[in-house]
């Protein structure tokens, strides 16, 4: 992975730039001591690191605007950062960039139950949004697995999903409005507590733009009434294909579970060793969760049991108690931690048409064998969002490169069968150079035109999303 050569003029002017930032921001809001900026050298894609020029940690939209105005005047690139949990390197700095972190902006600004929205500062963590409304029986639906740590700002930048988005949608479907600060320091209010855009859907293109169009400092989010209850079942199968067929039949039958999670044998084994969730020893398992009152849950699970029976499951385990429900989810929720225990791993995020599931799983198995690297699969089966985990050893010279090469091949396969490179993690730097696999030059040109309008000098997170060769002329401007 390449990054552009840092701009020597900016590096040479570091002292002046930091002094200008200090002049408009509180003393503790500007960090330039390398010992302290080290904490910002990477995000959750920790294979790539770079110390930034400086870090600013504003406490208000006005401070964000003031910092951006200065960076704009000085022509300094800015890398916005929520909580730094990006798996795609979305918040990875460059040496000549100022990191703009939103961690200190985490207040709840307004809660309105009759109109069913909450307005928060964008540095607030995902889970604490639900925390602010759950006593009143409401929740915020998107639930990325990093939800304890990740910030709404990053969720908006990457249009994050989660396990329950089959029913509730992803961030963009639950976002009503934002306060956006442009690179030039202008503060814009886009959307609000009402539905739909009055003109062009600017909110729709801002969400998922990976911090390249502006810095979101506040967000209005849709909140929903919590369902009366939820209950998972675990269904084990003796072949991946059969599990895939069962998913298709559940969807066709007209039941819409809130989640359908899939784990293959390597993943089941690893999590079982780690979490001891009591999963059956089988080739593939599904965790299917439905919601509603106890009677409604029974009605839906009755249907799912009938459908599963046609596929001769090796196990159909219904949670009778809270504790059993917890244990069914335990293995799935520990999967990433479990894989991390036994190996370094790279987590892919391609989406495929659900119908291509058996083919893709078989091909991944073959590719894994050819490359000599193990791959475990755990993913959201209802929507085809795969998460193949490629295991490697960071201490073994060349292993990371082999892992990345296999990852690229798997993502190309996802695109080949009609899917995409990333379903919920974003492009960042990680998948930047694969964009041409999915898009024609004219498709990428159309996207870059949008950035031209919001950030004409290409200073916001400039070396991400678009292959460097394609964006070179614009970044030089």
């Amino acid at each position, binding site marked *: 992975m390449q990054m552009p050569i840092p701009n020597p003029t900016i590096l040479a002017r570091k002292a002046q730039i930091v002094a200008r930032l200090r002049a408009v921001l509180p003393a503790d809001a500007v960090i330039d001591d390398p010992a302290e900026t080290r904490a910002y050298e990477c995000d959750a894609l920790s294979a790539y690191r770079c110390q930034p020029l400086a870090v600013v940690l504003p406490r208000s939209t006005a401070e964000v605007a003031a910092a951006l105005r200065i960076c704009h005047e000085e022509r300094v690139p800015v890398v916005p950062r929520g909580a730094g949990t990006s798996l795609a390197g979305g918040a990875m700095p460059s040496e000549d960039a100022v990191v703009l972190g939103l961690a200190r902006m985490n207040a709840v600004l307004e809660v309105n139950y009759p109109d069913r929205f909450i307005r928060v500062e964008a540095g607030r963590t995902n889970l604490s949004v639900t925390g602010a409304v759950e006593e009143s029986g409401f929740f915020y639906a998107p639930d990325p697995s990093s939800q304890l740590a990740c910030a709404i700002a990053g969720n908006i930048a990457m249009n994050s999903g989660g396990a329950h988005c089959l029913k509730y949608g992803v961030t963009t479907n639950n976002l009503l409005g934002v306060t956006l600060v442009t690179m030039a320091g202008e503060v814009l209010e886009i959307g609000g507590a009402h539905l739909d855009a009055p*003109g062009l859907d600017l909110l729709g*293109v801002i*969400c998922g733009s990976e911090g390249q169009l502006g810095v979101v400092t506040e967000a209005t989010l849709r909140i929903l009434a919590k369902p009366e209850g939820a209950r998972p079942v675990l269904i084990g199968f003796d072949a991946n294909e059969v599990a895939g067929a069962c998913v298709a039949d559940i969807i066709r039958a007209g039941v819409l579970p809130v989640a359908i999670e899939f784990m293959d044998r390597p993943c089941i084994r690893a999590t079982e060793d780690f979490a001891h969730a009591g999963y059956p020893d089988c080739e593939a398992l599904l965790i299917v969760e439905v919601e509603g009152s106890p*009677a409604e849950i029974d009605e839906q699970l009755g249907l799912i049991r009938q459908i599963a029976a046609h596929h001769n499951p090796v196990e159909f385990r219904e949670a009778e108690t809270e504790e059993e429900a917890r244990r069914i989810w335990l293995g799935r929720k520990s999967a990433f931690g479990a894989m991390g225990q036994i190996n370094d791993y790279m987590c892919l995020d391609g989406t495929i048409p659900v119908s291509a599931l058996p083919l893709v799983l078989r091909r991944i198995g073959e590719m894994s064998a050819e490359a000599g690297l193990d791959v475990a699969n755990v993913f959201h089966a209802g929507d085809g969002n795969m998460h193949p985990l490629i295991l490697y050893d960071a201490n073994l010279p060349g292993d990371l490169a082999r892992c990345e090469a296999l990852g690229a091949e798997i993502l190309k396969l996802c695109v080949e069968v009609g899917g995409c490179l990333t379903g919920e993690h974003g492009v960042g730097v990680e998948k930047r150079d694969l964009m041409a696999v999915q898009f024609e030059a*004219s498709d990428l040109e159309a996207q870059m035109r949008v950035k031209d*309008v919001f950030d004409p000098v290409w200073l916001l997170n400039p070396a991400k999303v678009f292959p460097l060769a394609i964006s070179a002329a614009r970044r030089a401007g």
Partner: protein
Amino acid sequence: MRVESERDLSEALRDVAGPVRIVGGDTRPVGARGGARLSVAIRGISLYEPAALTLVAGAGTPLAEVEAVLAAEGQRLPFEPVRWGPVLGAGGDSTIGGVVAANVSGPRRVQAGACRDSLIGVRFVDGTGVVVKNGGRVMKNVTGYDLVKLMAGSWGTLGVLSEVSFKLLPASTTEATLIVADLTPAEAVAALSAALGSPYDVTGAGWMPGVGAMLRVEGLAESVAYRAGRLAALLAPFGSPRQERDGSATLWRDLGELVVFQGQPGDLWRFSLRPSEAPAVVARLGCPVVLDWGGGLVWALVPEGVDARALAAPYAGHATRMRGSASGVATFQPEPAPLAALAAGLRARFDPRGILNPGSMG
């Protein structure tokens, strides 16, 4: 001009000398109407995978055809597209591309999201004739910028849609509507909000003259019965709700298509608001209204030439004049200058000659 393929569309836009007026079924004549007629007749469902809840169709495919194909498999478009032709005084058959271009969503929008939320992919031709694709046929996709959302509701001003892809939902087997009659629109909003804030998964919440407040639940039979019962108890403080089963679907179609306003004289306006602002807006308008989306959508029938946007102020939402032609009143909500500048910048880049439905949105 009439184009039947993306290639023809691309050539037509590349070669055209002046402004074009883009037409699907010509059922939504909203905004400026100048330019040469460009009829998009790119038809046909190119992919439908019921097990993947996915459909891809040419933009000129009639909405009715899409709906029929889905119904045969027990599925549907989640956002419940509505036909505005009759109330706007326009004939023709609505096309799926037209639905997207106007981001048309019906009563279920309040629970299942808007047209733009179900739209997962587009192909379009920009104002220079270049074909662009964005999104795709999978329901989770964050690869690159989301131009899919940008195209939905852009009324053809950024490009002409050639193909659209949707995620679908299973159609419900059962539905029921609770009706609380004898509520004014203002009183109804509180009842609708209470229901939408409950866990009973309400998929329609509106108010119609002659009927009253309406709340819909859908799903499996026992679940519908259960939730309708719980909602009836919840609504008791607002009146005695009666339950409509057989007539439920017709009621919501009537509300979505604004049957009570069809053939009535006057200008038709559409307000998107916080539901809690609706009672005051309705009072200031002082005209016949229909409410949808729990009061978040107000349809108002005002005397010809009245600037309902000004009459309803202040409110923190937006208003569109859907039918009416008096000059001096903007069709779309004028936006604050910085947002208008962004929109103008996007149009200038996607349609540098300014030929696509010019003047339609601002």
